[in-house]
C-alpha cells in the first residue's frame, strides 16, 4: 500500500454505495448479498458462514443457492448488532435457512436478528432480540428492548414492544415517510453530510 493514498477512512465504500465499516465482522462474505447503499457500522456481525446445508428439493438440479444473508437497499445496521440466519431440523437433519431483509431496514445498536424474513421499511430498535424464523412484514416498528419470540409473524403497520413482543399500536398513515433511510445513509461514511434540519 502506497503512502500516497489518502488516509484510510473508517468505512469501505463499494461501487454500489454500500458503506461497510472496517471494524465490522462479516463472516462468509461470499454468502452475504448487499443490495446497495447499505450502511454497516463498526462491531456489526453478519454470520454469512451459516449457510443452508440441505438444498430444497426443487433446486437440486440448479446451482446451489448459497446465500445466507440477503440485504436490500438503504439498510442501516447499527453498531454492535448481529444478523444470524436461523436454523432448524429439516427432514431429519439440521440446516440453516437464509435470512432475507428488504429495503430501508434499520437495525438498532446491540440487536440480534435471527428472523427468516424482514420486509421493507422496518425499524428495529436498540437491544432487540428477534427469535428464529420470525417473519416481519413491512412498515413495522419494533421498540427498544423487545424480544420477538421464535416463529412470530408481525403483520404490516404494527408497532410491537415487550417481552415477548406484543402489538401495542399501529403505524399511522402519516408515519410512512419516517421509515425512509436515505437521509440517514448520507450522514455516515468517510465524508458524512450533516443531517438535514
Amino acid at each position, binding site marked *: 500500500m502506497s503512502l500516497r493514498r489518502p488516509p484510510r477512512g473508517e468505512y469501505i465504500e463499494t461501487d454500489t454505495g454500500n458503506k461497510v465499516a472496517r471494524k465490522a465482522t462479516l463472516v462468509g462474505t461470499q454468502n452475504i448479498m448487499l443490495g446497495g447503499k447499505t450502511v454497516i457500522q463498526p462491531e456489526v456481525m453478519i454470520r454469512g458462514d451459516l449457510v443452508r446445508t440441505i438444498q430444497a428439493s426443487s433446486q437440486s438440479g440448479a446451482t446451489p443457492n448459497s446465500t445466507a444473508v440477503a440485504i436490500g437497499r438503504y439498510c442501516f445496521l447499527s453498531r454492535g448488532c448481529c444478523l444470524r440466519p436461523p436454523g*432448524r431440523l429439516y427432514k431429519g437433519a439440521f440446516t440453516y435457512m437464509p435470512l432475507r431483509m428488504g429495503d430501508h431496514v434499520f437495525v438498532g445498536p446491540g440487536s440480534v436478528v435471527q428472523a427468516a424474513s424482514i420486509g421493507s421499511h422496518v425499524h428495529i430498535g436498540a437491544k432487540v432480540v428477534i427469535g*428464529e424464523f420470525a417473519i416481519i412484514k413491512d412498515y413495522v416498528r419494533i421498540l427498544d428492548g423487545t424480544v420477538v419470540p*421464535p*416463529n412470530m*409473524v408481525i*403483520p404490516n403497520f404494527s408497532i410491537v414492544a415487550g417481552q415477548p413482543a406484543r402489538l401495542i399500536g399501529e403505524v399511522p*398513515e*402519516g408515519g410512512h415517510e419516517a421509515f425512509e433511510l436515505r437521509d440517514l445513509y448520507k450522514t455516515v461514511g468517510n465524508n458524512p453530510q450533516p443531517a438535514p*434540519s
Partner: protein
Amino acid sequence: MAAITPYTYIQCPCSDSSTLGRSSDTNSSRADGADDDDDRTFDPRAPRSNYSLYPLEYLLYCEDCHQIRCPRCVAEEIVTYYCPNCLFEVPSSNLKSEGNRCTRSCFQCPICIGPLAVTSVETKPDPSLLAAPDNTAAPQSGPYALTCSYCNWSSTEVGIKFDKPNGIHAQLSKLRNGGTARLTAKERKERRRDPSYRSSAATEQGDGRSGSDEKLDLETQFANLKSFYQSQLADPNASDGGLAALSDLGFSSPTSLSRIMSIYTGGSLHDKKAKLRVGAIREALEVDEGLQLADLDESAAIAQLHSEGHDGTASTSRLSDQPPNFGEAHLHGRSRFVSELRPIPYLLRTKRSKRCPVCRHIISKPEAKVQTTRFRIRLVAGSYIPSIAIRPLSLSSGSGTSASGSAGIPGALLEPLKPAHYLLTFTNPIFESIKVTLGAPAKTPGRFASKVTVLCPEFEIDANTDVWDEALKDPSGAGELRDRERERERRRHKGEEGGNVSNNNNQLEVGKIWERGRNWVSIVVEVVPAWLRLEHGTEEQRLREDEDLLEIPMFVRVEWEAEAVGDEVGAVVGRDKEAREKRELAYWCVLGLGRIRH
C-alpha cells in the same frame, strides 16, 4: 428522570367546539375572562388537552373541508379482516358464523402470548425442533401438542393433545382441558332428545338426589335454559290464544291490548292481568330446564392455592386474553389457575378506511389485500400543513451573554431562569408559498409560568418545488443546482458550519428569520424557564406530575393562495381559469421543549 426530545403536538379542531361549550375550565383563569374564542389561550396542561393533541403523523386532512382530522374524529370503516399470524383474509360472512378469532391453526400461548407451534409429543422436546414452524413435513407421527417456543408452555400441561397436526381449531373446540371430549351443539341436541342417554346418565349418578347435582357444562346449561325460557315465553300467549286466534292481528285480545298499553305508558298502568302474566314465567327448577346449583365447595381450589401459591393463579390480563365461552369451568367457578388456561386463538386484525366526519369523504383507504401496504387514498396532514422541527440552539459566548450552555445537548435539563433558545424549523409541504403567523402567550399557562418570546412571529416560506430539485439537493449533483438554489445552499451551510461567532448576521434579532432554505424557514424562540418553587405557597410545595415539563402553546395560522378548485360548485362560476383563492388554516399546537431542572 428521563430526558425528552423536543416534540410538537397539534390540536385537532374537532375538540374546539366542546371546549367552547364550557368556558369554566378549572385551571385557565384567563379563559374565563375572555368571552371571545380568539383571545383564549390553549392550555396544554388542561385535562381535556390530553385527548386533542396529536403528533403530525397521526393527523389526516380533509381536502374538501380544508381541515385537519384526527384519529378521534374520523369515522372508520373496516375494509378487511385478517389473522395476524397466518395473514389469511377472513370473509365477513365467516366472521358472523365463526367469531372474531382465527379458525386455522393459529394460537397464542395463554401464559406469555407468544405464538404456539404444533409439535409431536412423542419426540424428545428438542429446542430446535420446537422452533420449527410446522412439523408436518417431519416424519414423526402420533399425538401432537401446541408448544410455546418462548416460555416452553405446552398444551399437554392442560391435558390437550391432538390426533392430527392440522385443523387444530376444530379439534380444540371439541376438547376440554384434560382431554375429555366436549359436546358439539348437534350432539347436545341429540342427547336431549334421546331418553336412553338421560336415563343412563341418571343411573350413573347413582345416588339420584333429584338429579340437580348433575354437572352441566356451560354450553349444555345455556342450551337448556334457552329452550326453557323460550317455552315459557310461548306459553302465556298460548293460554290466551283463545281470543287471539279469532283474528290474526290479535287486537281483539285484551292481553295484547294491555301489552300495547303498557308499552306506550311505560308500564305505569299495570293491570292485574299483566301482573299475572309476569308471574306466569317461572324460573328453571330442573336440570333439564337448565338449573345448575352453585358449587360452593371451594376446598379443592383452596388446596390448590395452598400447594401452588400465588404463582399458580392466573393474572387478570391472562384471564382477559382467554377467549370467551372457551373455559370449561362454570361461570361461578371460572378458571383461576394457570393450569386451567387454554390456548388462545389469534384475534383477527383489520384494515380500515377513514372518512371525514363532516363531509363523509374518504380521507384514507388502504388496499383491500392483506399483504399490500399501498393506499388508494391517503390524505395525511403532513402533506398539507407545515411541519415544525425543534432543535436547541446553543449560542456561543461570543455574543456576550453566557446563554444556554446546557441547551446545546439535546435532552438536557433546562436551567431555571436562564434564557434558552430554540430553533423552530417550519417546512412547507405544499406547492405554493405560504405565509405563517405565529402567536404564543408571553407566559406559559400553569402554576409555573415560563416566559416565551417568539423572535419572528411572521414570515413567509417558499413553495415546495419539484421533486427533482430535492433530488438535486444531493451534493453529488450540486453542479446542476440552479443558481438561486446554490446561493441558498451556501448561505445555509455557512450558518451551520461557520459558527455563530463569525456570523454576524446570525445574531439574535427580533423580527428576523434565523435561516431559510428552499421550502423551510428557521426562527428562534427564546424561553426563560420558570423557577419551580412556589414563593409562599406552603400548602402545595410538591410538583405535580409533569409540571417541570416546559410546553409552549402556540397558535399557527397559515395563509396561502391556491388555485380555485373546480369541484366546489359555484366557486369557479364567473371566474377565469387563473382565479386564485385565498386559503387559511389555523390551529393550536404545543411545543414540548424539555424538562426544567428542579
